[in-house]
């Protein structure tokens, strides 16, 4: 087991080095953009994963926190000239506060009803953002003037964005990793698996759900700040969007909910798939999403645990037959 761990960590280390070296080899801006989008989605979906994958609270309103993050830092930047780096802190606070306000009542609901409530909250916030023109500029959205510089988190080239996104993703992986191996993670999973049983093991359910919400919403806000500085234009329709929320969720679900690397696997598969299908089927409008929908139905109903756990299980089973010490290797193999 220990030998395996080191094997695993060597592998991850190599991956990490590769990730840092990537911009030196990848000069094509389109690919660079896709890679940044993959990282961005992996991070965002990773933040959702903590709330939904670990603590089992299936939210379809995650774009709320993402959007709040984007709006908070952007408004501070545009209206008061506050650097987005500082804006991150405000975004975190804002998003976590709203997360708490939503979580407090919504955590009383279970299963699909929690999901419906998050949908409704998401809609309410979208309407408010569209309506409150004095603050948010309403549906006109906010255009961030392009003033490149480290302080404004705006750059002419893609590389700095790449590294910021990568840093963000690493942070989220690290936090997930830490949660995964700590008391908190065990408690999240216990709540997900069976609330009644969790309760009698001394787990304060609501408090731990709230922790997961706070961590999850905070991290989502982080990605929101990044997004705003990358796209330089935000509007309520785009950031408080239910379809966007379900896409975020989908990455984790396809990749494997409640695993550290599941969201990454999902993002690595789905983001390029989306891009490629869009250009491959441009002749017939709608065909790409039609196929997407069908694949979604099939994959989710046939592989409900997601790709990562399915592969891991397969490898585990085969590994066990060959030699027992290869157990768990599947996780490593699929992480790239």
């Amino acid at each position: 087991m220990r030998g395996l761990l080191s094997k695993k960590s060597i592998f991850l280390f190599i991956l990490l080095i590769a990730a840092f070296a990537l911009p030196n080899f990848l000069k094509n801006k389109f690919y660079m953009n896709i890679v940044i989008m993959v990282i961005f989605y992996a991070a965002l979906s990773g933040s959702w994963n903590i709330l939904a994958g670990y603590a089992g609270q299936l939210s379809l309103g995650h774009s709320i926190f993402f959007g709040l993050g984007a709006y908070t830092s952007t408004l501070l930047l545009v209206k008061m000239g506050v650097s987005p780096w500082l804006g991150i802190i405000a975004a975190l606070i804002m998003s976590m506060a709203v997360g708490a306000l939503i979580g407090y009542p919504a955590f009383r609901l279970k299963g699909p009803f929690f999901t419906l409530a998050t949908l409704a909250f998401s809609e309410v916030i979208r309407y408010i953002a569209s309506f409150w023109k004095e603050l948010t500029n309403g549906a006109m959205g906010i255009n961030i003037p392009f003033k490149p510089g480290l302080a404004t988190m705006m750059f002419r080239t893609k590389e700095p964005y790449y590294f910021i996104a990568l840093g963000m993703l690493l942070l989220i992986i690290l936090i997930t990793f830490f949660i995964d191996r700590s008391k908190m993670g065990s408690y999240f999973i216990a709540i997900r698996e069976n609330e009644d049983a969790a309760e009698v093991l001394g787990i304060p359910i609501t408090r731990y759900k709230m922790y997961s919400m706070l961590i999850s919403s905070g991290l989502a806000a982080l990605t929101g700040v990044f997004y705003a500085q990358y796209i330089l234009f935000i509007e309520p329709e785009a950031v408080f969007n239910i379809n966007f929320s379900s896409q975020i969720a989908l990455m984790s679900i396809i990749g494997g909910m409640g695993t550290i690397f599941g969201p990454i696997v999902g993002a690595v598969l789905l983001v390029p798939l989306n891009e490629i299908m869009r250009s491959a089927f441009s002749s017939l409008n709608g065909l790409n999403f039609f196929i997407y929908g069908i694949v979604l139905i099939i994959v989710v109903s046939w592989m409900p645990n997601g790709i990562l756990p399915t592969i891991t299980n397969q490898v585990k089973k085969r590994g066990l037959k060959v030699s027992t010490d290869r157990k768990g290797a599947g996780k490593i193999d699929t992480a790239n």
Partner: protein
Amino acid sequence: MRKVKSVLALVLVIMLVFLSGCGSGGSQSASGGSQSASGGGETLKIGAIYPFTGGAALLGDESFRGAELAVKLRNQKGGVAGGKKIELSKADSPDANAAQSQANRLISQENIQLIIGSYSSALSMAASEVAERNGVVYWELGAISDPITDRGYKYVFRTNPTSSQFAQSEIGFIKEVVPAKLGKNLTDLKIALVHEDSLYGTTVAGFIEKYAKEEKLNVVTNQAYNMNSVDLSSVILNLKKAQPDVVIAVSYLNDAILLTRQSKELGFDVPVFIGSGGGHTMTDFQKALGADANGILNADFPQYEINKSFTPGLDEFVKLYQDTYGTAPRSGHSVTNFMGMNVLLNIIDQVGSLDPDKIQAAARSYKLEPGKSETGWGVEFNDKGQNKLGKAYVTQWTDGKLVTVWPKEAAVQEPKLPLLKWSERK
């Protein structure tokens, strides 16, 4: 069974990735909008970012057709700069996120130096941002949001009029025409604004309100609503209370239809009703309403019942459209894109290549008199890349057609005001 299925699903995913990989390889040749361009000589490739899927797909497609026809026509006539053919590379962008990623793809993947677009202002904002950062020309043909050209970008140009130009046209029309027709003083007119609350409606309505205030007009109410509402009776009841002489609406199609139908149902009569492009401009609007549409005014891009001597080439365009797509143009979006695309093609012709710096320099000195284009607009870009001579025309629905009634040089008919009451419209 469960295990078998999950393995199957896995295989499916892998296959799909593989397949789409192949698909993307083939996409470059397939994505060219005009196959006719492949006839020898050098081909200049231009990216075209429009929403072809999602909620904005209808007008996105209509807009693209204008650009596509301009290219087709030019290629038929021998291309630009001594026989170079133009090819459009379609990039479907249902949302801003996709637009920016597609712009990136076009620039770095297909090495495109010039992008056109986009019908939707949100897409335009996102895509033009990418273009500017990469030193690629972004040529806007139809999105009307002012900020697109307010940012002072070096490589972003727009041939069509902006929201503020729309608003100016509408206020201009009210000033010039309405007082005489209704026999009231300009400042006595009660004006009501009603608009959908997304980017488009809010922007246009915002400028209308601003200019109306500058002209000391009396705006009695301003109603915003969500374009997806199934019921607008509350909006109409609020309007009814205000008893306006003029209603200016900024709507998309579904809400424009609903607004009219429910106005009729609820017996809300108003002497002057002006739409601001969007839904009020579309043939589907008239199809859905029939005679009820008669008399409704609309400020928008040029329509097809217009003084043809002021818009040379328009007939040729309509015929080409009819021949290519089998129907009449569905709205003025296509001709607007057609006109702007022609301007761009003229500039490319001058420059001889797609070199962004040369094109932007040539564009800045490009001039065209009013009354010399398919839309009647002149062309002269201000220092921020906006065409100063763009203008919205006011048209009136008359027996299924949008007949141009203002300004005089483009008009083919006097505006018929005040509007008939619902019960009298036939």
